[in-house]
């Protein structure tokens, strides 16, 4: 049976619009709840907007999570920088010098990237305790640099593979060393790929929970995700505050996705080892 093009489009849009509503519903409900008074969250329908926007839950939530939010920033930025630095150097090399040894190295890095973190959790706490930095911001930075540098390497390698080799071969004929040509010729061209890598690594660290909850040995150094989990665990926190706190915790990734979506998507594809075109 043939359906007309117009009918097909109506069906397509209906499916997409209905799913869009349902997919956005948790965000909408969270926002609406976060703007209601404690009393209103119990007396009004959850889907109904508040009678008047009440920003007190946001102030209470910020009071509860601000230290953790700042901790997450203090940890995520240096760790992201170290991962991207390691990953860019190694990813470039692996994309340019294809040998048996490098293929083996690529394979070992890929395994290390995708194995579940549970197998690394106990040894990591042993390592951080032995070095004597357990319970400090540095412990998170070291842990995330070790955990996510392999992925940063693979994502960078995907982007470098898409850049033609002739570029730096020309530079080297002119007498530049590989290190010089990497910094002067390749890096500027690779900038979009490096932005994608940075976004993916930053968001992974920001959103990570298994190590975050384990390394947050005291409330002083607790990062944002365990803090939200902790808010949820405390019965004294009302739904409106919990939703405001949750929205604060996802603000950075949401802003990045809305502002730099194209880079995020390219990074996701490269990170899945799909290759970059």
């Amino acid at each position, binding site marked *: 049976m043939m*359906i007309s093009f117009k009918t097909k*489009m109506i069906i*397509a*849009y209906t499916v997409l619009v209905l799913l*869009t509503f349902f997919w*956005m519903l*948790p965000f909408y*409900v*969270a926002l609406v*709840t976060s703007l209601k008074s404690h009393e209103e969250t119990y007396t009004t329908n*959850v*889907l109904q907007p508040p009678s008047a926007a009440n920003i007190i839950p946001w102030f209470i939530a910020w009071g509860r999570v601000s230290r953790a939010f700042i901790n997450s920033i203090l940890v995520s930025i240096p760790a992201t920088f170290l991962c991207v630095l390691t990953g860019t*150097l190694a990813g470039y*090399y692996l994309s*340019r010098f294809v040998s048996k040894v490098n293929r083996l*190295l*690529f*394979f*070992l890095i*890929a*395994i*290390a990237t*995708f194995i579940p*973190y*549970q*197998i*690394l*959790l*106990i*040894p990591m706490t*042993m*390592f951080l305790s032995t070095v004597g930095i357990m319970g400090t911001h540095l412990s998170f930075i070291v842990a995330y640099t070790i955990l996510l*540098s*392999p992925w940063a390497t693979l994502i960078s*390698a995907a982007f470098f*593979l898409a850049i033609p080799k002739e570029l*730096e071969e020309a530079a*080297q004929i002119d007498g530049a060393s*590989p290190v010089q040509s990497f910094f002067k010729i390749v890096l500027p061209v690779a900038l979009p790929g490096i932005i994608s890598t940075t976004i993916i690594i930053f*968001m992974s660290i920001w*959103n990570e*929970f*298994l190590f975050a*909850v384990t390394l947050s040995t005291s409330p002083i150094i607790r990062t944002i*995700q365990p803090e*939200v*989990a902790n808010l949820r665990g405390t019965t004294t926190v009302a*739904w409106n505050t919990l939703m405001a706190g*949750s929205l604060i*915790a*996802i603000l950075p*990734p*949401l802003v990045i*996705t809305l502002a730099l*979506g194209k880079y995020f998507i390219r990074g*996701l594809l490269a990170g*899945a*080892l*799909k*290759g970059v075109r």
Partner: protein
Amino acid sequence: MIASSLKEKLIFLAPILLITVILYIMIATSIYVSMSDWRSYKISLNFVGLRNYIELFSNPRFYAALRNNIIWIALFMIPTSFLGLVLAYIMVSTGKELIFRTVFLLPTAISMTVAGTLWVWMYASEGAVNTLLKAFNLSFLTKPWISDPSTALYALIFVTIWQYLGFAVIIFEAAIKGIDPSLIEAAQIDGASSLRIFWDIVVPQVRHGFLVAVPLLALSALKIFDIVYVATRGGPGLATDVLGYFMWETAFWGRFMADGAAIATIIFAISLGIVIPYALIALRRWFR
């Protein structure tokens, strides 16, 4: 070819070599700890052979968690990849990908901890899900979704579908755009219906999309932890217990480090069955 001296090699590779060596030493350490007697705050690494595994295999909680992981993988991986493909196909055919893609990506961008928190509220007795059901005169379907043992697991699995659908959409959108348009045009000229084109041309042409999405989705469900921690702590009873949560609770609440390491080693062993073929395929695709 570009010359490279040992010194230059080291500048590029030394950091990742160091980190890779550390990671593999950590894996070996975990496996060793799983055969030790470390069961307190104080570290103790006397070798006890397979004792911890034997005890684990006689613990009913292990089988409950394993069963939930298997259900999670199946009911998460199959709908997410299939729905992702269908949605990507519909999106591409409307030509309005940008807006819809962003909609599905937002849940993918946020942490699973917050996703779990938002959905705990969605699933509450007076939450949005039950409110919507009542609005559509389906009150008989309302229930406390995550405190009812018969629905808790499926309710959490749905949240992970909600989160990862955007990821699947992205993978399949890229795969669909890689299809030679003349294939589809030829079928249209032959008068094939959209459904036929989808089954006979699109699905086989995007099989490399499945090769990317399916293993990664399976791994995500295998290591699942965050949402169980924040939403149910494995409960009610053992209804939503999974290996990842069982491992963490054993090692870091109970301080049975060796037993936790044994569970971690089992998760690791299962994951290798997915990760090794995945890495080999990616290697071949990249360096052909």
